[in-house]
C-alpha cells in the first residue's frame, strides 16, 4: 500500500539517522544531503539501498545523483511506489 509523502519522510529520516547519527528532526525536506547534512556519496548509497528495501522501490544508480535534497528523495520514492 503506497505511503504518503509524510510517511515516506518519516521512514527516510529514520534510515538517515541510523546511517549518520544525525537527529531525525533535522532531516527536513529542504535539506541538501551534501551541503546541509554532510552526507557523502558512500553514505548516500547505503541510505538509498536501505530505502529501496524499506519502501520496496528501485532507485537506479543513475538516479541517485539527482537526489540532492531530502525532498528530492521523498518525491522520488513516493512516485516510485506507483
Amino acid at each position: 500500500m503506497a505511503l504518503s509523502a509524510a510517511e515516506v519522510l518519516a521512514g527516510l529520516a529514520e534510515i538517515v539517522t541510523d546511517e549518520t547519527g544525525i537527529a531525525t528532526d533535522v532531516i527536513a525536506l529542504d535539506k541538501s544531503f551534501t551541503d546541509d547534512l554532510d552526507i557523502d556519496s558512500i553514505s548516500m548509497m547505503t541510505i538509498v539501498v536501505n530505502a529501496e528495501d524499506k519502501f520496496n522501490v528501485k532507485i537506479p544508480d543513475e538516479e541517485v545523483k539527482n537526489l540532492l535534497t531530502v525532498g528530492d528523495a521523498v518525491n522520488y520514492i513516493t512516485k516510485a511506489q506507483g
Partner: protein
Amino acid sequence: MAKLNQSTSVAFSKIYSIGAARGDLTVTNDDIAGPINSSDEWITQRTGIITRKRASKDRSLMDMAVEASNEAIKKAGIQPSEIEAVIFSTITHPYQTPSAAALLAELIGANPAPAFDISAACAGYCYGIAQADSLVRSGTAKYVLVVGGEKLSDFIDPTDRSISFLLGDGAGAAIVGPSDTPGISKSVWGSDGSKWEAVGMTGSLLDFRDGTGAWPTLVQEGQTVFRWAVWEMVKVAKQALEVAGVKAEDLNAIVMHQANERIIDEMAKQLALPDHVVVAKDIKTSGNTSAASIPLAMHALLEQGQIKSGDLALQIGFGAGLAFGAQVVVVP
C-alpha cells in the same frame, strides 16, 4: 582405439606460504590532496587511508613481484625449479606481450614452467588461487606460484577525484601445492560485464595512439562500485562460506580486497562477523593495490601475529570487469 592417459588427480591443495613486497615510497594524504582539492581529514574519513605505498621509478612491478615470489618460495621450502606453473595477476604490466609471468618465471628460476597472466583486476589473486587449486588437484602442476602485483601509480591521474587517491603499488605471492588435508575451498567466482564501465580506464591505447585521448588512467563510478561491492559481494561471501561448509564464527579472519575501508566495514557489518574474526585493514597504510591487496593484507596479519598458520580465512576479491572471486583457505 589407443588408451589415453589423463593426469592423476590429487585430493587436496593448500597455500604453503605468502611473500610480500610494497612500494618504497610512503605517500601521505597531504602529499596528494592538493591536485584533487581535498584534505588529509577528508581522505581518512571517506576511505580509512592514512598512507599508501607507491614505488619510485627505480622500483618496477617486476622488482616487487620477484621479491615477493622469492620470499614465498623460501618459506614454502621448495626449489624454484619445482614450480610447475607461474600465474601473474596484474593490470599494470605495460606490455601487450610477452607476459609478465614468463619474465617472472625466468627471473626466479622457474623457467621452463608454463607461465601466463590473469587480467581480473582486484579479483585477480582469488582468480589465481582458484586456477592454482584446479591445476594442483587435477595433477597438472605440483607447485604453482600465484602472484598478485600492481604498479598502479603508472596509470594514475593525480587530479582524478574518483579513485586515484586510493591507489598504491605492491606484489603478493603465494605457493600453492598438494596437501593431505583440505586447504582451499571450492572457489565462488564470476563476472558482471554489464557493469564494464563502472571502473576502468579513461580511454584505450588506440585513443592514445590516435591522439584522441590522453594516456589512459584509472577512473571509477564510485557509487555504482560501492553498491555492487557491498550488497552483491556479501552474497558471494555467504555463498563461499556455505560451499566451504563453514560458518562465519568458524573463521579466524576475513581478508577482503582492500578497496576502501567503508566497503570493508559495511560488508563486515552485513556479514555479522563475531568479534573474534579479524578483519584485515592493510589499506590504512598500503592503500588499494588491486590484485596485490589480498596477499599483502594476509601477509601483514601474519607478520603482526593477528592470525597464525592453520587458521581459517575467507578471502574475497572484487573489482573491474566487474569480476569477483572468493574462497575459504587455511592460513599458511
